[in-house]
Structures are given as structure tokens and as C-alpha cells.
């Protein structure tokens, strides 16, 4: 078992070369935030969260452990598949079927003395804000946009302007074949993942009628089986893309259809690839991107050199498709970003007001002047001007008081108005009687 408390002083030789980087200022080090004598101790006690223990995650865990981080946590909901073994080097054949997070954690602990890695074999959504609050740094090696958006929104939501420790830098790596990206997000300070969503190329879709009537490629036959035949025949209650029996059903259906239209090339593995949207992974691209991410982690934790995101560039793209090309640039924050933009403004109100009185006050406020406001909270539709059916359903709310509607001091409300088609107003109710 690895022991958690190995003081750097007891093993100076081991970190000699790392120390010559992290304990000495360079020409661009910001003197106001750098203190070389406490760096090693700070990195040792800092809690770092790694999300994903796959292709990028294996590299990230190894790199962090060898960079002097000693309290590392890792979340991954997946189990090890035999197809992972060519690049996810912390896993062996006998590990197939076991939790990625647990096997990766044990492996790195065994190889790097003094590091403690805490695995979580579950979804990131299984944890609440309190869990994420304990970390000082989050590094993602994910393959899904959905998970990135979730953790991004969670970290932005944690920010409390009065609590220094509520700001968690987020480092995000991603790869696709020979291409990749590394970016750093300082929640509410720099552009966030939601601001940068347009950087993701959407998955090319084939028109439904092509699938239904004139397939030309093996992929069309597979998509037909997946999108149309499955729904018509429903061979199993719910499609499980990891169940070989389900994939085999789709494969046979696709094969029949391909025969009918004389299309060669439908195979079991292509079926799996199309249905699960598998993109070929290249081990070396993962290494390049993970290395970039972990160098940023080292710089953010030690302040020994300026990191990505401070103050200018926050996004590094890498392309190995045609020679090597990398470019680093600043992605601007979006003022109307639904996650990090539009910090809610205070709106004076009274619990005894009716909703109508609140809306009237919005029309009167000089900075708002909202004459046809529609108002919602995250869970409740308070009043919508349109469409007519929703207006009718929410009209009775107008004569209820804010207290009756369950609105508390501090409640955030979202207001839209057709006069400001592109603007979304966020307000935070401030009750006078407090």
C-alpha cells in the first residue's frame, strides 16, 4: 500500500530536476504570486480531480503522479474493454471487465511511491457540489461533450465571489484521431466550455429519407437498422449499445438490407463503430495532449511560469493530420453565455408583492424597461406571454404573491422580452424586509 505522507525533504534527490523547474522563477514568472519555498508542499497537499481514466486519463494520472502531485482523485464510470489495451497502458488483459478508475489508481500508486489516488467508479453526475468543492484543480480527459458541459456548469456554479477556494481551474483535453486540443478555463473569469461550444464540429447526419429509401453506403444500412428497423420491431425494450446481442441484431438487419441494395462492407465491428459513434484513437495524440494538460496543471499549481488562460491565450489546438500544426489563441468569453455570462443582477422585491407587481416593477426599472416580460425559474414557469396556451395556464400566477409562488430571497429568475430578442435577463430577488 502506498503511504500518503512522504515529505519532500525526505526524498530531495527524487524531485531534484522537477524542483529546479518549480521552485525557481523564470523570466515570465509573476513575482506577486510565486513563492518557490512552498511550492512542493502546496502541490503535495493540493487535491486534484481527474475526470476520465481512458486514453487521456491514463496518461494524465501517470503525468500528474510524476509531476509531484500526491493527492489525486479519479472518476470513471467505465469498465475495461479488451480494445482499450493497445493504448490505455495502465490496464492488462486480466483487468478486462474491471473498473477503469480503480485499476488505474492501483497501478499508478504501485509504480509511483508516495502518491495516493482515490478512484470513483461512477458518473460525474452522481456527486453534488459539496464533493467538487473539495478540489483545487480539475483535469478532464473525456470523450463526451455532454459530460464536459456538465462539469463546466457545475464548476461555474460553485463560484462564490466571497470565497477564494470556490474558483476551480478546469483543464480540458480532447483528441480525435491525429487532432487534439488542450484548454484552460478559469470559471467566470475566462471563456468557458459553453462559450466555446461552437468549436465542436457537429456529427454529420444522413437524411432520414436516404436511410429509408436509397441507401448507398454500408453505414446507411446500419443507421437504418439503428434508427428505423429497431423502432419498428423493438426486439428488446431498450437499446443497450454495449450488449453484443443487441449489436448483433442490428448487424443482421443491416446485413439483410445491404444485400437487398447490393452494398458490400457491413461488418459486426463497423456496426459497433457506427452505432456507438466510435472514433479511432491514436495513442501518441493522447500523449501529446495529456502532456500539454499536465504541464498547465503544474504551472497553475506552482505559478512558476504563466499558464494557458493567463492572461491571453486559453486554447491550444493540435493537428497531426498533415505534418504538425499547433496554434494557441484566446477564445473570448460570451456575454450572453447561458452558463458563465449574465451574472444575475439584484432585483429589489417584496415577498408580499404579487407576480404582477414584480413584472410592473421590471417595466419601470430604467435599466430593464421590460414591457412584455416572460418569467421562469429553473423549475417553475411563472408567467409566459406566449404561446397562448402557456399564457393561459400561467395567467393565474399573476395574482399570487411571490411567497405563495415559493420564491425566496436570493431566488434567480430568468426574464425574456420580445423587444430584446437576443438578450436574456437574469435577476436575483432581493427582499426588502430582510
Amino acid at each position, binding site marked *: 500500500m502506498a503511504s500518503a505522507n512522504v515529505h519532500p525533504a525526505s526524498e530531495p534527490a527524487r524531485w531534484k530536476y522537477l524542483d529546479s523547474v518549480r521552485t525557481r522563477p523564470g523570466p515570465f514568472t509573476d513575482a506577486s504570486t510565486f513563492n518557490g519555498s512552498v511550492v512542493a508542499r502546496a502541490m503535495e497537499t493540493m487535491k486534484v480531480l481527474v475526470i476520465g481514466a481512458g486514453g487521456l486519463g491514463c496518461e494524465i494520472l501517470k503525468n500528474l503522479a510524476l509531476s509531484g502531485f500526491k493527492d489525486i482523485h479519479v472518476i470513471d464510470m467505465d469498465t475495461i474493454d479488451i480494445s482499450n489495451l493497445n493504448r490505455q497502458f495502465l490496464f492488462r488483459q486480466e483487468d478486462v471487465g474491471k473498473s477503469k478508475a480503480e485499476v488505474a489508481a492501483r497501478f499508478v500508486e504501485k509504480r509511483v511511491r508516495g502518491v495516493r489516488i482515490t478512484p470513483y467508479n461512477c458518473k460525474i453526475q452522481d456527486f453534488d457540489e459539496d464533493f467538487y468543492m473539495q478540489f483545487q484543480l480539475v483535469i478532464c480527459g473525456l470523450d463526451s461533450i455532454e459530460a464536459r458541459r456538465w462539469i463546466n456548469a457545475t464548476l461555474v456554479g460553485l463560484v462564490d465571489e466571497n470565497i477564494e477556494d470556490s474558483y476551480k481551474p478546469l483543464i480540458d483535453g480532447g483528441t480525435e484521431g491525429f487532432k487534439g486540443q488542450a484548454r484552460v478555463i478559469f470559471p467566470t473569469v475566462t471563456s468557458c466550455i459553453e462559450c466555446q461550444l461552437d468549436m465542436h464540429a457537429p456529427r454529420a447526419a444522413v437524411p432520414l429519407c436516404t436511410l429509408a429509401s436509397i441507401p448507398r453506403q454500408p453505414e446507411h444500412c446500419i443507421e437504418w437498422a439503428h434508427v*428505423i428497423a429497431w423502432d419498428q420491431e423493438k426486439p428488446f425494450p431498450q437499446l443497450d449499445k454495449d450488449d453484443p446481442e443487441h449489436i448483433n441484431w442490428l448487424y443482421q438487419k443491416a446485413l439483410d438490407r445491404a444485400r437487398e441494395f447490393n452494398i458490400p462492407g457491413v461488418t459486426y465491428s463497423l456496426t459497433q463503430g457506427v452505432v456507438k459513434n466510435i472514433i479511432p484513437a491514436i495513442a501518441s495524440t493522447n500523449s501529446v495532449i495529456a502532456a500539454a494538460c499536465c504541464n498547465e496543471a503544474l504551472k497553475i499549481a506552482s505559478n512558476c511560469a504563466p499558464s494557458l488562460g493567463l492572461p491571453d491565450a486559453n486554447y491550444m489546438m493540435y493537428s497531426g493530420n498533415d505534418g504538425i500544426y499547433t496554434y494557441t489563441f484566446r477564445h473570448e468569453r460570451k456575454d450572453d453565455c447561458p452558463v458563465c455570462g449574465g451574472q444575475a443582477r439584484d432585483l429589489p422585491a417584496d415577498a408580499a408583492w404579487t407576480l404582477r407587481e414584480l413584472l410592473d416593477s421590471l417595466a419601470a426599472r430604467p435599466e430593464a424597461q421590460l414591457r412584455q416580460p416572460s418569467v421562469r425559474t*429553473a423549475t417553475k414557469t411563472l408567467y409566459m406571454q406566449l404561446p397562448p396556451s402557456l399564457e393561459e395556464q400561467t395567467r393565474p400566477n399573476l395574482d399570487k404573491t411571490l411567497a405563495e409562488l415559493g420564491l425566496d430571497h436570493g431566488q434567480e429568475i430568468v426574464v425574456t422580452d*420580445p423587444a430584446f430578442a437576443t438578450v436574456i435577463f437574469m435577476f436575483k430577488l432581493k427582499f426588502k424586509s430582510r
Partner: protein
Amino acid sequence: MLKIWSMKKEQEKAENAGEGTTAPAPKKKRVTAAQLRVQRDLAELSLGNTMTTEFPDPDNILSFILYIEPDEGMYKGGRFSFSFNVTPAFPHEPPKVLCREKIYHPNIDTEGKVCLNILREDWKPVLNLNAVIVGLQFLFLEPNASDPLNKEAADDLRNNRDGFKRNVRQAMAGGTVRGETYQRVLV
């Protein structure tokens, strides 16, 4: 220790010239990006007098039903309903739209799937819910034989327009066309 804190403080100093800090409000469930966008899109819907909506749960604006009653064209006299389900990925993914009746239409299959380019391959985040309902309305005014989902209906439309019209009337009345029985949708 982390530089982000000092950065944030400087940013704030630049932004506001001294408003007293307020006690932090308890953390509330945040409004999602999809909700924000749908709230804005709904206020821009132009339903005219041929369309209405129904919200089974007014607090959940991500799920609703759209009714279309075409006032011209071959489908005049029918009332068609579509379920709209907006996923958390909206507007980066299109809303999921299904026809709730089994109808005879070249671009809608008997499961209710709709072949409308902006619901799939040509969806862009700049499009909104209004673009979708305009597209759906158009399908009833100009059914399109070159994008068939119901192949028989498309063949009929292409080869025998008058026969197709008769089939539409028959199917809308709850009759059988080419061995397939359709749902009555006449108002």
C-alpha cells in the same frame, strides 16, 4: 496560492466602483442552457390561426405538443399533432419531433418519424423552434415525393396526383390505403 483569485478581484475592481458585497444566497438549481433558449424561442413562435400548443406540464417547457390544422392544400380539414421533446443539448442538437397520429404522408412514416432536413442533417444552432414549426406546416402544404419515408405514398404522389389526393382524404377519414389503415384526423 492560485492566481485566479487575484485576477478575479482585479476584474471586479475594474467593473464596479464599490457596491457593497451582499451575503451569498443559498445555491439554487441553475437554469439550463436549453431552458433559456426555449424560453426565448417560445416567445417568438408565430402560430397564426392554424397552430396551437399544449403543455402537459407548464413548468416543463422542454416538452410540449403542437397541433396543426392546415387551412389549405390536400390536408385541409385534418388536425395533426406533433410531440416536441427538447434535449439538454438543444440548440446544439435539434428538438425531437414525432407525429402522434398514424397518417398517410410521403415524408412521415407510420411510426411518426418526420423527414424534414432541419430536424436532422441541416439543423444549425441558429435555427429556432419557429423554423421547425414553419417546416412542419410546409410539409402539409407541399408534400414532397423526392424525400420519401412512406414509399407507397411518395410513389402515389409522383405517379398519380389525383389518386394521391383521394388517398389522403380516405386516410384522413380513418380509411385503409394499400392495406394500411390510418388514423382518423378529421376535425
